[in-house]
């Protein structure tokens, strides 16, 4: 695979490109894990947020509030460097980056999904209550199918934010596109100057994010058309 790149682009660009593309893999993995893990926790927090119990609501609100108001970079520092330093343990960059992004993602998605659920007309709840539909079925059969149409576009839009957000993880030594690119940009190799490498990286982020952004816009346009 590496040879293939070198054959086409020559040295050093073949090597650089190959390493950057390989590093994209980690960017994508981390994004996916953040999205899936964050999504799972977000589902739970969303359920708590709309639960009849005031206590659960408060806990969920606090969770959302805390992790939404801490900048992602701060979370990465805290979990990647702060906590390990305090407890005198080693946390590998993968673990730290995963935890930080999962927390960040879960809070954001929980907020988006709560908004989506609250966009469903109040009357849908009341009709369901009046018909004695059980709470779990009320959510599954009445509320969620309607909330999805409000939530899907911002959710996919947020995936773009996560992908871009993973780039911050280089700061705690997570080896993704950002870290590899920066290393090359600093290397005294002819043809790997910052003005070559950074635009190249920007293009790669663009290639990952753009399809998602388009997809999000399409869904949004469709849901607006439907509601009109």
């Amino acid at each position, binding site marked *: 695979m590496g040879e293939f790149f070198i054959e086409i682009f020559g040295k050093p660009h073949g090597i650089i490109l190959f390493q950057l593309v390989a590093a994209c893999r980690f960017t994508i993995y981390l994004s996916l894990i953040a999205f899936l893990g964050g999504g799972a926790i977000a589902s739970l927090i969303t359920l708590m947020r709309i639960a009849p119990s005031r206590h659960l609501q408060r806990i969920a609100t606090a969770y959302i509030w805390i992790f939404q108001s801490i900048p992602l970079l701060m979370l990465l520092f805290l979990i990647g460097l702060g906590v390990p330093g305090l407890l005198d343990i080693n946390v590998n960059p993968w673990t730290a980056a995963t935890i930080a992004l999962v927390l960040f993602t879960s809070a954001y998605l929980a907020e988006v999904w709560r908004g989506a659920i609250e966009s469903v007309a109040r009357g849908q709840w009341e*009709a369901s209550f*009046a018909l004695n539909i059980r709470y779990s079925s009320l959510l599954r059969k009445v509320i969620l199918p309607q909330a999805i149409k409000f939530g899907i576009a911002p959710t996919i839009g947020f995936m773009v934010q996560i992908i871009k957000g993973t780039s911050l993880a280089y700061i705690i030594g997570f080896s993704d596109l950002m870290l590899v690119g920066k290393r090359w940009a600093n290397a005294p190799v002819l043809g790997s100057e910052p003005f070559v490498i950074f635009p190249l990286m920007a293009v790669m982020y663009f290639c990952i994010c753009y399809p998602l952004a388009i997809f999000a816009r399409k869904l949004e346009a469709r849901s607006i058309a439907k509601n009109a």
Partner: protein
Amino acid sequence: MPKGAKNIIVKMEKVNKWFDDFQALCDVDLTIFEGERIVVCGPSGSGKSTLIRCLNGLEAHQSGDISVHGTELRGDAQSVRQVRDNVGMVFQQFNLFPHLTVLENCTLAPINNGKMDAQAAYDKAMTYLKRVQIPEQADKLPGQLSGGQQQRVAIARALCMEPKLMLFDEPTSALDPEMIKEVLDTMVSLAEDGMSMICVTHELNFAKRVAHRIIFMDKGRIVEDQPPADFFKKPKSPRAKLFLEQILSH
């Protein structure tokens, strides 16, 4: 009162209800017998909706006693469920489930709370859709129906739960004038079958035709409670007089 009626279906005693520090119901006393049809009217904000929403636990009252078909509403989940099993409700805005077909709207609740299996729920739904005269729309989505048809579906949906009491909250207020009649006709035929009904409405002709009693509310209180003939001819309170004048002058 309908002939031979003895059983009480709704009993409210000294019911008070606040929204924060605003009192929406004040010392409401009300007894309704099985088979009785009540029309509730009154100015906007007088507590009509609140009154009937308290009867199926959509709103909780803070003091006084409410019992419906022998079950006292105590604010616990169990009594609320039990009461809702016996009470159907029709809303001003229909509140049909827009992503489900007309048929699914009617079968969801009966299947969900284990009242019947899918086949029985289907049969029941078709029976009531015929009853409200739209069986041919069963597979359509609510959005494809006219307002009048949607409200008739909402009535059928409530009937599928075999309620002992039907609550209507301004069922024709959101409708275009030409559709009001079809919904009122449906309600009249329900009345003719002896259903106990409480209906918030300003359709006075409907009230004259089907109501046993008219309840007039003002500022959270029941100000008048009389048969329609008396209410329209000689309202006791000045407030009701004024209200009638305003409505009839339209």
